[in-house]
């Protein structure tokens, strides 16, 4: 018998693994459409009770037990199923304990053993489901019901969770430990299972559930505050729309001004700089050094009456005709080179009967000398001839210059 069961179970699990894709599709989408999957596969899964059809023309869905297995194994946060049916678990445990006691009484050890195994299975699965429920609750709290969008939905989810918690707590209250210990009597196995084990788990769970309840209340308080603020704002706008001349009453005219409105005037202004405080000197100097006075930043930008556009075009060729004065000076330089003699500029001017003004001529000669590249300049010596100004000291009046080859 147990061999058959074993085989059947292995077969079922293998089927699950072989068609894992279909199962996960159904899990994620909620249902599976027969058109997209192999008909034979679907038929097989249906037969082994993995998929089922809730209504004749509904799509196929996963069986609750398979779904629960996946939800638990994947810790899926959308899972909000909680088995709060503590009452039936309690009566099952009680019934099985009675069976066991009867079998023991009748000295039917085989049956007693089977009942005890069954009982342990029930007790453990009950405590496990209880712990699992609490885990589910915590995971929903920890992400603040993040799987739903709006604040109203969060409030509803919170209320659902709260009702589940109170159901669980009510259920746990039904466990009368005195009754359990009475059932267990003085049978060691039963005492261990029902009194030590169960009792300990239950009191732990009760404690944890009250923590859950506290957190839920705290969360709902926050959600309500957010919701309250939104409503407050909308309500205020509605109210002012309905009563356009609405003005809040003068709440500060009463004898006792509400603390909320007791706002003091701003009295403090930045302190002034004390330039006589020597200890501030470094800081002040630093501040002064950072001052940049760029006055053009403060000037208003110029507005031109016309749009002045510049266009980039190719530069036209042009040449500057040589200045005849400059050419004449070049001649003079050449003359000095040719003759190799020291020559006065003014004398040269007179000798060649050039028409330039003496002053212009001198300036151009000096300019011509200074304008020479350094290596050429080194070949010449230029000496200004003149005397210090008779009245203003430091000025030197030039009458003439002399140029010769160095």
């Amino acid at each position, binding site marked *: 018998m147990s061999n058959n069961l074993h085989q059947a179970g292995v077969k079922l699990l293998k089927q699950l693994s072989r068609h894992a894709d279909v199962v996960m599709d159904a899990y994620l989408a909620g249902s599976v459409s027969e058109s997209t999957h192999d008909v034979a596969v679907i038929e097989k899964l249906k037969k082994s009770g993995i998929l089922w059809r809730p209504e004749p023309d509904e799509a196929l869905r996963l069986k609750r037990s398979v779904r629960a297995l996946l939800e638990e194994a994947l810790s899926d946060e959308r899972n909000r199923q909680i088995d709060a049916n503590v009452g039936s678990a309690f009566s099952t445990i009680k019934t099985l304990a009675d069976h066991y006691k009867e079998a023991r009484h009748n000295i039917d050890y085989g049956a007693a053993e089977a009942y005890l195994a069954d009982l342990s299975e029930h007790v453990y699965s009950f405590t496990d489901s209880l712990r699992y429920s609490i885990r589910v609750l915590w995971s929903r709290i920890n992400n603040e019901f993040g799987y739903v969008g709006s604040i109203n939905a969060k409030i509803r989810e919170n209320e659902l969770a709260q009702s589940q918690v109170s159901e669980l707590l009510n259920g746990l209250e039904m466990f009368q430990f005195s009754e359990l210990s009475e059932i267990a009597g003085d049978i060691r196995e039963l005492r261990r299972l029902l009194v030590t084990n169960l009792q300990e788990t239950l009191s732990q769970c009760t404690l944890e559930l009250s923590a859950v309840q506290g957190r839920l209340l705290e969360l709902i308080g926050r959600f309500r505050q957010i919701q309250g*603020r939104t409503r407050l704002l909308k309500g205020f706008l509605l109210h002012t729309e309905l009563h356009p001349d609405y003005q809040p009453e003068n*709440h*500060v005219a009463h004898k006792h001004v509400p603390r909320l409105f007791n706002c003091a005037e701003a009295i403090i202004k930045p302190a002034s700089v004390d330039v006589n405080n020597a200890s501030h000197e470094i800081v002040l100097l630093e501040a002064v050094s950072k001052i940049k006075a760029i006055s053009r930043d403060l000037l208003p930008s110029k507005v031109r009456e016309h749009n002045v556009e510049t266009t980039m075009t190719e530069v036209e060729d042009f040449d500057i005709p040589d200045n005849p004065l400059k050419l004449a000076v070049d001649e003079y330089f050449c003359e000095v080179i040719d003759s190799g003699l020291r020559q006065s500029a003014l004398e040269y001017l007179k000798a060649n009967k050039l028409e330039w003004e003496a002053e212009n001529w001198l300036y151009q000669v000096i300019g011509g000398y200074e304008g020479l590249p350094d290596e050429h300049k080194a070949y010449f010596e230029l000496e200004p001839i003149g005397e210090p100004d008779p009245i203003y000291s430091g000025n030197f009046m030039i009458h003439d210059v002399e140029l010769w080859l160095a």
Partner: protein
Amino acid sequence: MSEQSRTPSQTTASSETTLVGTGMLIEQLLRGEFICRTTNEDGWRALKNSTTFDKVEQYLNQINRTISSAAEGDVFFCGYQQLGEQEKKVISSQFKDICSALIPLVEWLVLVQESSGQDAPLSEGAPIRLTELQARIEDTPAFMEQLAKLSQYRLFGSTSSNVDNQIKLVFKRLVELGYLVKPNSEKQIYIATGKLDYLYEVIRFIDETEGLSLEAQAETATQRDLV
């Protein structure tokens, strides 16, 4: 440093670290600023610590000021310790300022909440990305109308018909008024301050004292909308 004698080393250390900032904290309070976690976290922590709180309070008491708090003790501001005629006048004018700012501010809060599709209205610490908000407003003509309307209130005083100018001015004013802070001057990200939480408390106070039942009004309106 008189506490040094009576406190164990750990608290001495903490009061010493907060001591440094007390001057700035008092200054901020006297400038009429609201201290919250967002505007001045160190100062806020200092006021949460009873030693520094007492120290600041003692200082303020000498000039007839006291530390007031709102939003369940998460926002601090400076109030008068005793109210004479002069102080009452100040409070009365401050109250008028708040009342005249209520409608523009509430309209702005609702606009921000609705355009960003959030459940929760802005509260302390919530960031606003100006460019995102502006894009959303520009996508919806109704939001643009709301912005145009509220930016023209005297509180904001915009005369522009351009969304960009309007929203920039509104945000600039809100920073000036202390409802927002802009932590990085180069980024268009603003963070709501505790002064907004104070504003909610003011509205709630008015609602409760005048029996306006604003929340109920809003609820019936939304239910009507749903029907």
